[in-house]
């Protein structure tokens, strides 16, 4: 698969209300924690196109999670603006909530529920009925290799299975943007390959995917990469462009080069 995927943007689905060129657009975004002691975001300007896979990379503490939390409306910004699918966040976060799916770094599933009960719960929160759910589960469960595990309690699943379940819960309502926070960690290489093909196909149907990772080969697969440091975007472009600019062979080398001098507190 090529680094730059030419994409026909005409097939991107748009709702009547949600207009705007970008799936996600932030401007001058600042987030200060604990009365000015920690500046997690320091003027982030992020523009993510509809239907692209965007990898947000950076060392621990560089502000990736804060950026995602702000975009999903889970925390409020100190200053700056956020637009998701054309909606102002946090003001319209209840509308955005129906259009996004989030698979957090922690599995964030209910261990005492079965696989299908977990999915059912998140589907209900999105207003799906039983018929829609069954149809959707029939599509997703085989892809994520969970169809044999429908009745299994989540606490009996392996780490990789929990991760897959978490992603299914995020995809169940056909979101327009999918956030994957280190979401392919713990998934075996063969399956990961398969996932990326699947995600790529979803993007062809208009889904925007935002991946945060510090596993750099994930970044290589993205359409564009944004590298964060100290709450700002310090490098951005297609993986090819970024590598070319720094005359290196891999994103990992770019990462190491640009992260030098930063105390990694993770």
């Amino acid at each position, binding site marked *: 698969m090529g680094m730059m995927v030419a994409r026909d943007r005409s097939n991107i689905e748009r709702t009547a209300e949600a207009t705007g060129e970008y799936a996600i657009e932030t401007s001058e975004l600042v987030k200060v924690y604990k009365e000015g002691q920690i500046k997690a975001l320091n003027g982030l300007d992020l523009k993510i196109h509809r239907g692209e896979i965007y990898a947000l990379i950076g060392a621990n503490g560089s502000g990736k999670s804060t950026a995602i*939390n702000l975009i*999903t409306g889970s925390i409020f910004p100190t200053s700056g603006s956020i637009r998701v699918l054309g909606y102002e966040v946090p003001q319209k976060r209840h509308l955005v*909530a129906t259009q996004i799916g989030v698979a*957090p770094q922690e*599995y*964030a599933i*209910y261990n005492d529920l079965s696989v299908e009960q977990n999915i059912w719960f998140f589907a209900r929160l999105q*207003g799906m009925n039983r018929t829609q759910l069954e149809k959707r589960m029939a599509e997703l469960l085989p892809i994520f290799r969970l169809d044999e595990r429908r009745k299994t309690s989540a606490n009996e699943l392996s780490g990789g299975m929990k991760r897959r379940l978490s992603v299914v819960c995020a995809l169940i309502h056909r979101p327009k943007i999918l*956030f994957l926070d280190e979401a392919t960690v713990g998934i075996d290489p063969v399956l990961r390959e398969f996932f990326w093909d699947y995600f790529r196909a979803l993007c062809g149907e208009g889904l925007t995917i935002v991946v945060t990772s510090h596993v750099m080969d994930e970044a290589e697969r993205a359409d564009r990469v944004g590298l964060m440091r100290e709450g700002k975007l310090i490098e951005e472009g297609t993986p090819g462009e970024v590598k070319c600019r720094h005359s290196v062979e891999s994103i990992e080398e770019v990462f190491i080069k640009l992260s030098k001098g930063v105390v990694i507190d993770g």
Partner: protein
Amino acid sequence: MVKVKSFSALRVAAVCWRVMRQISRDRRTLAMMLIMPAVIMLIFGFALGGQVEHIPVLVENQDAGYTLPATAGGESFHYGDALLTSLKTDDRVAVHEGDYFSKTAVDKGTYFAAIDVPANFSQILAMKSDGQNLNATIIVYVDSTSPTTEASVIGALQTALQMSLGSSGVTVDEQFAFGGTQFSGLDVSLPAIIAFVLTFLVLLISLIIVSREGTSGTLPRLYTTPLSAMERLLGYALALLALGVLMVAVVLAICIGIFGVVVEGSFALLFGVAVLYALVHVFLAIFLSNFAKNELQAVQLAPLIALPSMALSGMLIPVSSFPDWVEGIAHFVPMYYGVELFQGVMLKGYSVGQLSFELGVVTLMAVIFLALAAITVKDRITA
């Protein structure tokens, strides 16, 4: 070859050190472990240390007095007055004089007993001492739903009789309020135990379930879904209420099915009261769960609230005999009203109307706790 000891005091010490470290790092748990026993001991001490005193008692002294015929010396007797004077000096009771036929005030809970000294009291006693075979009778209409109080009232009356009249036999005719039954120890304790069990268990289970959301990592994900904080809160409340109703059903089934407890009032009202009472604690638990960082802290809150409530609820000794300031606190404790409500329906056969004050207070408490829970519930990640 490396030799590994099968038992090492060092390893034991390491585990001990680690556990102590963990406890000392959780300041809230540490504070609770030190403050909780102190608070509980103090409250029980104050609640149980005090004598049962100043029990409100209604007395009608109808005694007309008696003057012996001039032929017999013309001496006047006022045994009723003497009895009343002695009774008034007894700290166990607070004597209010009034019409015995307003003894319905005992049924309403204003007085614990109504004592009737008959008009011919002095006359009969005088004639008796003259050798006639007569008996003076004092009627005591008493609330037997609290055996301690009942014993104190009868005790005070016996002492007063002894002091004022010496050992001349007076019959004390004890009549029981609320349908004339004398309740067994089990009858009178069960309503209070129901209140305690519901407080403790509903709080405990609710706190565990609600705080689990916070520790499972699912909460941040819920913030990204259309679920609002209020919807989440009401969802918890409904599920926990269903659980509360089940608990109520089990508790009542055992009380009635196994112990054959008498329910004087309406069973539907009893069930309704129990569900309302459980709901207060569901809302309280949802509110309190905001202040617990983990399940351990949440679980500690249940006994921290249930035990002092037990001391203050009047289930051990009547609230009216607490020192005034402790009695003041007791009126803010849901269990105090819980005991009143359960005793009211089960023993006294009260109707909704007669319990309207307690029902009102408990409903108000439910509304306040729901409001507090709604105000404090988090709808986003707090830094």
